[in-house]
């Protein structure tokens, strides 16, 4: 039953049709949420008592940091599907997600560095959270480079899936780094188990920004995976009808 369910969604042809159908809705939702979240957060949320106005970087830093890690978990899920059921589409989606993860991790590191200048007095510190996030960035970069370096796609898909699963070991380290070690980086302000430690007037635009990035990254994933499918399946007969 599970195999049938996966097969139903695993066809690149069906997937491309769904991408085309839903792209405009997801993309528009992302833009609307981002405009509301950022305008509210940057211009209308109150000034922080300790950090002043520089905390407003949070509306880009937190969503990009969350998705930098979440995208890797999603890649690991697809890697499992690819290795267990040999689903081609899962490998395409891993590659597409790796590019988006790379972008998100870069934005998280960059915004964090800029935030560090006025608050910590330095743009970089080799502390646990920042270093483990840098490792995540290098992992995304490594996976993309490795996959591009192979001529045999089947082999590179399998190798990439294995490496993605091995790389998940870094994710709990990033998450728990602020608790396990003494770091410059503050502990998490938002967790699933406790109520947020930031004021509700700052929290709502932050949640809207997080949702916005979710939609934007999904729409970006649609485009990225479309490019990969068009490249990899270009000799298939159904592609001729599709384009």
């Amino acid at each position, binding site marked *: 039953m599970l195999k049938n369910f996966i097969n139903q969604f695993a066809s690149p042809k069906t997937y491309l049709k769904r991408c085309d159908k839903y792209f405009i809705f997801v993309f528009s939702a992302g833009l609307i949420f981002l405009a509301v979240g950022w305008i509210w957060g940057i211009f209308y949320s109150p000034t922080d008592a300790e950090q002043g106005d520089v905390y407003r970087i949070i509306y880009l830093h937190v969503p*990009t940091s969350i998705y930098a890690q979440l995208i890797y978990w999603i890649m690991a899920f697809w890697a499992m599907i690819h290795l267990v059921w040999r689903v081609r589409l899962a490998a395409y989606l891993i590659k597409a997600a790796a590019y988006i993860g790379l972008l998100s991790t870069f934005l998280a590191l960059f915004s964090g560095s800029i935030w560090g200048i006025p608050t910590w007095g330095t743009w970089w510190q080799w502390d646990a959270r920042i270093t483990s996030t840098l490792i995540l960035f290098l992992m995304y970069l490594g996976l993309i480079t490795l996959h591009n370096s192979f001529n045999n796609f089947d082999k590179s898909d399998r190798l990439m899936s294995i490496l993605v699963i091995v790389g998940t070991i870094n994710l709990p380290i990033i998450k728990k780094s602020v608790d396990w070690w003494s770091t410059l980086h503050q502990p998490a302000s938002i967790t699933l188990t406790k109520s947020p430690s930031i004021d509700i007037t700052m929290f709502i635009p932050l949640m809207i920004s997080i949702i916005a990035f979710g939609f934007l990254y999904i729409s970006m994933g649609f485009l990225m995976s479309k490019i990969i499918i068009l490249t990899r399946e270009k000799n298939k007969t159904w592609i001729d009808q599709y384009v």
Partner: protein
Amino acid sequence: MFDIFSSSHGVYIWSVYGLGILLLLTSYLLLFKKVRDKKRQIKCLNTERTD
């Protein structure tokens, strides 16, 4: 309302959001272009094959 250009922290905020918007925009433009190019490439291949 927070004035991003007169605040002492404004430079940090607009540099982060400026680069963020620029990167997101560039990514979308590149992706749209690449999708269009791939489709054209496949159409050319099809024409060659039928000829």
